[in-house]
Structures are given as structure tokens and as C-alpha cells.
């Protein structure tokens, strides 16, 4: 694929991302309405104006941010796919954007489990992957979890496989984590297998990132297992294979250590050693939220660092996706923080990567 045109456009789009001083200005605003006024001076103005017809306050910000992110990703997909089918096959960006298919299916399944209205479910989905808005509307219309999975299977969508395989277990235990975990595992292992088969430079870049994502997911799973005092024998079933630096054996040793601090010690000498530097005062009891936040921050930083990679490769697209996610998450944190009257100092600490 010729990245000259696509990456120049993405870099131009990157120049429109909000700079740290703008985020600082947003934090310094006294309330949500002044945050919205400030956001209207940024490229979010168009989506804010459209959304203001129907929504107000925090919902307005949420809808505008979501729509802006969707249109940015759809635009990139549009010009990266090109006109020829051949080109579409070679572009690896859809592989990265498939994560939103997983996010959307999980959202719909969760919504169906707790019987939330279709409108409410659809307000949380991000149609940036293969499943477009029409498909998501149809899925959200289904009466229950089983019907959603059946519809995915009828459409021949590959994500129906892990869901169908694990549905029996889910219906016995009524635990949504079973289906969510199966989806995550399927997505990560499938993407890794695809890029391993490819062998191009783009595949290598995505492979390195997916491996980091597998590590982060596995570490989070291990920490949850320790917190919930899960049986070590059961642990292996919940870990995703594929990582080289942080293999299943090491992860099982972490589970066996029985404490979060003990597990973190096994990460010395790996890129995840930063978890050992988390100050004890920020870890309250068995809470793992601080660890999860740091792991998410690591992944976002790793993604954004790809802007420094080969300018004529998938690196730039990958970096933009993460930079956009980071920006939207940061604005959401600020907007939600202003609604909840959180002090500015705490808001600055909560931002992912500035």
C-alpha cells in the first residue's frame, strides 16, 4: 500500500488534535457549560453544534466526542481502503479498528443482559469497525443475549464463534465476564495469527503492539484473579497465549504468589516494571484500579509513540487511532470531572497521557 497520501492526511489530522495547553484551559474552567464553550473553539465545534439540537450538558459532550471519533476513524478507513479491492486486502488498519467491533458487541451483550433500552445501548457504541450503524441497530433490537449471538452467527460474523462456544457456560453461571473474556481472547489471538502469517513490515508493527496488548490483558487478568482469590488450577484457562516476554509460566507464578505486590515483583526486568513503582499509598486494600490505570496509560503511550516510526508505514495510522482515543478519553474525564465537581489537581492526575 502507498502510504504517502494516507499518512500525510493522517499527520494533517494529527495537527488538529488538542494540544496540552488547550486541555489545561479546559481543566481551569469553572463548570461544564464553560468547558463546552471552550470546546466550541476547537474542531469539535461541528459535532457539538449537531448534538446540541437533541442533547445538553454531559450527554451533549459525550455524543459529540463519540461522533467526532467515529467520523475520524471512518474517514481514515475510507482513504486507506482506496478504490481497488486489492488495496483493501493489503491495508492492515481495519485489524486495529476491529477492536471497536469487540467493544460494540460487548456493549450490546451487557445492555441485553441488564435489559437496557436499544436507544441507551446505541448511545454507547462506536461504529468504527466492520459492524456499521445499521448492523448495530439491528443487533441492539434483539430481545436477549442469545438472539444477539444467533444474529451474529446468521450474518456469518466470526465473533459469533467464541460466543456460541461459551454460551452454555454463560447461561449456567450468568456471568458476562465469560463472554467478554472469550471475545477478547478471540480478537487478540486471531489478530496475532493474521499478522504472523503476513510477515510484512506493517504486520511486524501490529504484531509488536498486539503482543503488548496481550501482556496488558494478561496482567490485568492475573491481578483480578489474585484479588478474587481464584484457584490457580483454573487460571491457565483465562490467560491468552502468544506473548514471548511474559509467557504463561511466568503469569502462573504471579498468580501463585497470592498477593498483588508479590505478583508485581515478577515483572522486574520486563517493560511492565513500572507497576513496582506505584506508591503504596495509592493502593488501597485489594484495589487494582491504580494498576489497571497505569497499564492503560502504558498502552496508550506505546500506541502514540508510533508517530516516531516509519512515516511510510501503518505506524502513523496506529498512532493516530491511539492519540484520538487518548484525546477523547481526556476530554471525557475533564467533562465528567467538572460535572462531579472534582478538584483541578485530581483531574490533572486522572488524565491518561498529556
Amino acid at each position, binding site marked *: 500500500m*502507498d502510504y*504517502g*497520501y*494516507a*499518512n*500525510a*492526511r493522517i*499527520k*494533517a*489530522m494529527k*495537527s*488538529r488534535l488538542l494540544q496540552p495547553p488547550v486541555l489545561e484551559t479546559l481543566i481551569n474552567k469553572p463548570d461544564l457549560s464553560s468547558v463546552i464553550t471552550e470546546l466550541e473553539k476547537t474542531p469539535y465545534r461541528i459535532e457539538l453544534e449537531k448534538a446540541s439540537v437533541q442533547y445538553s450538558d454531559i450527554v451533549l459532550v459525550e455524543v459529540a466526542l463519540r461522533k467526532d471519533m467515529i467520523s475520524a476513524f471512518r474517514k481514515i478507513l475510507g*482513504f486507506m481502503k482506496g478504490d481497488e479491492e486489492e488495496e483493501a486486502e493489503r491495508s492492515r488498519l481495519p485489524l486495529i479498528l476491529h477492536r471497536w467491533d469487540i467493544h460494540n458487541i460487548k456493549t450490546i451483550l451487557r445492555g441485553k443482559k441488564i435489559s437496557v433500552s436499544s436507544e441507551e445501548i446505541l448511545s454507547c457504541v462506536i461504529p468504527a469497525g466492520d459492524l456499521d450503524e445499521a448492523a448495530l441497530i439491528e443487533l441492539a433490537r434483539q430481545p436477549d443475549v442469545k438472539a444477539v449471538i444467533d444474529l451474529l452467527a446468521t450474518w456469518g460474523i466470526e465473533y459469533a464463534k467464541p460466543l456460541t462456544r461459551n454460551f452454555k457456560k454463560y447461561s449456567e453461571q450468568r456471568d458476562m465476564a465469560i463472554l467478554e473474556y472469550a471475545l477478547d481472547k478471540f480478537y487478540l489471538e486471531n489478530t496475532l495469527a493474521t499478522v504472523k502469517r503476513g510477515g510484512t513490515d506493517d504486520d511486524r508493527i501490529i504484531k509488536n503492539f498486539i503482543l503488548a496488548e496481550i501482556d496488558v490483558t494478561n496482567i490485568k487478568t492475573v491481578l483480578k484473579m489474585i484479588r478474587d482469590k481464584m484457584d490457580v488450577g483454573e487460571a491457565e484457562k483465562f490467560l491468552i497465549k502468544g506473548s514471548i516476554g511474559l509467557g504463561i509460566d511466568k503469569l502462573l507464578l504471579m498468580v501463585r504468589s497470592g498477593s498483588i505486590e508479590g505478583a508485581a515483583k515478577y515483572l522486574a526486568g520486563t517493560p511492565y516494571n513500572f507497576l513496582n513503582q506505584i506508591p503504596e499509598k495509592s493502593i488501597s486494600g485489594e484495589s487494582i484500579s491504580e494498576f489497571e490505570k497505569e497499564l492503560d496509560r502504558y498502552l496508550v503511550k506505546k500506541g502514540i509513540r508510533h508517530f516516531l516510526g516509519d512515516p511510510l508505514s501503518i505506524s502513523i495510522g496506529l498512532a493516530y487511532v491511539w492519540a484520538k482515543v487518548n484525546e477523547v478519553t481526556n476530554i471525557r474525564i475533564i467533562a465528567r470531572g467538572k460535572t462531579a465537581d472534582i478538584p483541578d489537581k485530581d483531574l490533572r492526575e486522572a488524565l491518561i497521557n498529556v
Partner: protein
Amino acid sequence: MVDFGIPIGAGIAFGLGALGTGIAQSKIGAAGAGTIAERPETFGLMIILVAIPETLVILGFVVAAMIMIMLV
């Protein structure tokens, strides 16, 4: 006997310069089109950037001309 070496040398000097210019302009042109699509205000700058590799073909032409004029 006609010496073909001089015109062939001049042809190579001009041809390779033109080839280099073509390759460079194709890359810069594609990236420039992408940039202009997102930021139309960069149009003037892009025209200049696309024109910069022309220096290669001009230098090739000058060398070819020098070969032809000075050696023939």
C-alpha cells in the same frame, strides 16, 4: 568514425536526473495531495515542495549541455 560516447553520456546525465525527479515528485505529490485535502491553506507550500526536485533534472540538463557543448 562517429563517437557515440559523448551523446550517450549526456543522455545518461539528463535521463537519470529526470528519473530521480519523477520518483521524488510522485512521493511528494501524493503526500502533498493528502495534506491539501486536510489543510487547503497549505496549497502554496505544497506547490513549492513539489517543485523542489525539479532542481535534479535541471542539474542533469546543465551537465548534459556542458558535455555536449564542451566536448563535441
